[in-house]
């Protein structure tokens, strides 16, 4: 469960990126986060992953106030949350396999079945043929799928995807979305920041809408806008 309580995030003195945001995402929820460019979606995700600190307010993940975490406790929070980053954040010198494997090692689950899990994750996003390539040898969409595979391989209880279909063609985008729906059905909490109107409108799930850092709509079964 993620609880965001009256959070303000001001990077600088101009307008804050998040302006008194409160919301609650329960376990097993499937939530879309929408809003125009610069609305604050990525900022919210960064705060939940404790990559940035809120200016004020608090955030609870599974009952723990993460703004109070000590340095050494941050890794275990991040292992609980799998993030698909908007800019992928792949290790530039590692191959596709190594990138996915690395996530498994980080959570300490790279055991006997490790290689198999890595291969399965890569297979799931359709990149088996590219497994030995490095990020700069991949197309934009392929890089995005590596990011997805790396997030899913560890089976985290919470998955946060930031614009996971931005570089994917509609078909691959749909497959990705179905994948997220499947893992949600198996118990994973899923939060997706997206601009993909088609997907949001078709899936009719809970939609949280941000505008200039404020929550302007939080609707179960909503569409992309209005």
């Amino acid at each position, binding site marked *: 469960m993620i609880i965001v309580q009256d959070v303000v995030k001001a990077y600088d003195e101009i307008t804050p990126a998040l302006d008194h945001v409160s919301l609650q995402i329960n376990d097993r929820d499937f939530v879309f986060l929408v809003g125009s460019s610069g609305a604050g979606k990525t900022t919210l995700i960064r705060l939940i992953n404790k990559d940035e600190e809120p200016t004020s307010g608090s955030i609870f993940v599974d009952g723990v106030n993460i703004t109070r975490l000590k340095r*050494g406790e941050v890794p*275990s929070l*991040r292992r609980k949350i799998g*993030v698909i980053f908007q800019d992928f954040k792949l*290790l530039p*010198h590692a191959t596709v396999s190594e990138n996915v494997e690395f996530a498994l090692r980080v*959570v300490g689950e790279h*055991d006997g079945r490790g290689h198999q899990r890595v291969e399965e994750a890569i297979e799931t996003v359709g990149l088996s043929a590219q497994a030995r390539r490095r990020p700069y040898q991949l197309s934009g969409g392929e890089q995005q799928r590596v990011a997805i595979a790396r997030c899913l391989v560890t089976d985290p209880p919470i998955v946060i995807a930031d614009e996971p279909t931005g570089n994917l063609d509609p078909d691959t985008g749909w497959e990705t979305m179905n994948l997220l729906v499947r893992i949600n059905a198996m118990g994973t909490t899923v939060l997706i920041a997206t601009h993909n109107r088609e997907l949001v409108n078709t899936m009719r799930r809970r939609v949280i809408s941000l505008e200039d850092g404020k929550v302007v709509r939080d609707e179960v079964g909503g569409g992309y806008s209005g």
Partner: protein
Amino acid sequence: MARFRTIRYIIGAAFGSMWRNLLTTFTAIITIAIMLIVFSTFLAVNDTLDHMIDALGRRTNLVAYVQDAAPPSEITALVQSVSARADVAEIVFVSREQAADDFRNTLSDLAEILDVIETNPFPASIEVRMADPEGLLPLADELRLQPALIDQVLVRADVVGRLLRVSNLARIGGGILIISLGAVTLFVIFNTIRLAVYSRREEIEIMRLIGATDWFVRGPFVVEGAVIGFIGAGLSAIAVVAGYARVGPTLESLVSFLPIQTQTGFVTNLALFTMLMGVLIGSVGSYFSVRRYLEN
């Protein structure tokens, strides 16, 4: 089991990254090697000079010229009584012939003078080296009280004083230079590591975002630093030991008029010390270089 896998991963990752950044690895090794070669050559030279100064300082500091007419038996008795004193380290009787020979040997470019002079101008003497310089003047006074045996007593206070000044200067100067050069060496090596890590800051940032612990991120860097330091220092140790073995004897024979002595033991210790330093500098340097990117 999990811990063992992690350690294996860290070591593997270290070697993987060394292999991937081969050029950086190579230049880091060479940088460490040459800085340590410069530094340990300097240490070796300094040690040799130290020994040389020590050897010079160990020379006679009191000479009593013996009356030509003194009976040998009394001189022998005198020598024995003096050598019995606690503050005397060494006492030597130098005959007239020996004195002339010594002059010829130590100052060969003036030796021809003796051939020109034709007579031997040197009197016999008793040369004393003190264990404790404090006793020097009292001993001189004592000897002066026996004019029948001793013609004149010379205390080389001037020479001793000057030598001590030179030796102190050399020690202080050497110390300052060693510390400065050591600092330069450390700075250059640390800086090389720092820049190498800097170019991988993005990687560090990504690892952290995925939830890697500090040691998981840092481990490979520290191991890599230690290995690079070890190889670099190893090259330096080989170069210094081999170089010393080759240059030492040549030098010794060339400047035989100075009490130079090759200290193979010192150089071996220096090599081991260098290796240890290499590993330490490499790993500690990496540790701190990475820490900067872990903390913000």
